[in-house]
């Protein structure tokens, strides 16, 4: 325990000695981590949105009236299910379609009751669920080409576009994070290198009197950890407060009610812990690189 305090104290001294370098490392971590936080927020929300979209994006296939016999309808169902990207296709009778229509008109829907029976002008239909919302257009085109299909319609195209926009943003942020992470590691490694260089005499005395290599290295590793720690405070605060604020102002949904945002509690705690661990990991990795290079085992 006493040892740990000593190492931390020495680490602080090292950080203060190269304040400019330390601050630039810390700010790179800060910026990197902001994007890491953003990345995590988008990722987990997309996950939830995709889930919602998968349940709601489906294709409505109207059956051509001249193919209404049982054999044709069944064979159409089989063909639809055989298409790539189709998860399920549910047959919907004319009555069923009428129910859906009546329901969709709400209070005034009952005026359509008179359609029920032999004279129902609606078409038989298949409701097709697809595996990936992004494929909806191509699946719809394939279905339209099948024999016995009168028309296809699908809702939610805007939703799918939105989703793919989010996915693209996520990938962009991911690349940004990777690039910034590299810069952060490099800057931390350099900070630690300066720190090691400025302690040359101390290190050589430690070696002479028989301090172990682990003992000599530890304060420098702590320096990296501390840089990570300090670098993570601001972005964790911003991301947490920002997300809670966004959640509240947007009423817990993103543009459409279909996209329910992940509830900030306890989600934001997990994100914060993940950010902290990533920051300390990057700090440790950067300092580890430097220590490995400049404080190798030697006699």
């Amino acid at each position, binding site marked *: 325990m006493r*040892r740990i305090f000593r190492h931390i104290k020495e680490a602080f001294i090292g950080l203060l000695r190269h304040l400019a370098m330390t601050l630039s490392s810390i700010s790179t971590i800060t910026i990197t981590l902001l994007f890491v936080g953003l990345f995590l927020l988008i990722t987990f929300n997309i996950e939830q949105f995709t889930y919602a979209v998968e349940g709601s994006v489906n294709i409505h296939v109207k059956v051509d009236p001249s193919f209404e016999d049982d054999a044709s309808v069944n064979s159409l169902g089989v063909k639809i299910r055989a298409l790539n990207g189709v998860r399920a296709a549910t047959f919907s009778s004319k009555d069923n379609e009428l129910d859906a229509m009546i329901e969709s008109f709400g209070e005034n829907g009952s005026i359509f009751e008179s359609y029920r029976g032999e004279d129902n002008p609606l078409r038989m239909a298949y409701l097709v669920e697809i595996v990936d919302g992004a494929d909806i257009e191509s699946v719809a085109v394939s279905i339209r080409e099948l024999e016995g299909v009168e028309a296809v319609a699908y809702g939610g195209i805007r939703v799918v576009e939105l989703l793919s926009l989010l996915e693209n943003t996520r990938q962009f942020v991911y690349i940004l994070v990777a690039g910034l992470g590299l810069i952060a590691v490099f800057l931390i490694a350099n900070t630690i290198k300066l720190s090691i260089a400025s302690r040359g*005499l101390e290190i*050589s*005395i430690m070696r002479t*009197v*028989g301090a172990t290599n682990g*003992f000599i290295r530890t304060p420098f590793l702590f320096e990296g950890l501390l840089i990570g720690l300090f670098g993570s405070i601001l972005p964790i605060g911003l991301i947490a407060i920002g997300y809670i604020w966004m959640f509240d102002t947007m009423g817990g949904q993103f543009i459409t009610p279909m996209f329910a945002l992940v509830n900030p509690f306890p989600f934001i705690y997990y994100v914060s812990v993940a950010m902290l661990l990533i920051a300390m990991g990057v700090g440790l990795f950067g300092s580890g690189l430097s220590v490995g290079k400049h404080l190798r085992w030697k006699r």
Partner: protein
Amino acid sequence: MIILKQVFKTYKNGTNALNGISLTIEQGEFVYVIGPTGSGKSTIIRLINGEEVPTKGLVEVAGVNVGRLRHSKVPLYRRNLGVVFQDFKLLEQKTVFENVLFALEVVNAPTIEARKRARETCALVGLSDKLNSYPHQLSGGQQQRVAIARAIANQPKVLICDEPTGNLDPAKAKEIIDLLEKINRESNTTILMVTHAQGIVNSHRRRTIALSDGYLVSDLAAGGYKE
């Protein structure tokens, strides 16, 4: 006990620094190593403290085959040795007391004992009244006393000194030798001292090993030395 048997040292650049040195130093001996510049004196010290490995031959200290020591074992081995350099190597931002304490802290000595031991050691070298001074506030002789205190704080069996008086005037140098003799006498510490100072070798007669071009040219128990 320090044993060198047919020790050769050739540096990476091809310099033959030592050519078949053999000698035995008993525990508690006080030995001078003399010789012209480049004769291999510092090389012997670096072999003894494990910084360098012999190209050929055996270097054994306190029963440890130093040349064969694994890297990870070197630190523990070094705790048997104290080393004093010509240029003191004190930490400027630490006080006298902290400089001595440093050597104990970094080998994990328990705090209370370490502080007690650091104070005792400073007293032993005659710096009790300078505990809170910084190195730049001390004379050269006093600085070297701090370095000696730091080297013996951990109670090593062997104290090796590479020209400890090289930066000091003769009067101060004599005081340092007196101190080393006292340490040698009171704690039976083996002392190996590299020096250029003829005056000292002749006034404080001790076993004297002379090197030249990496060869051992004389080993006189009676001591004394003339050009």
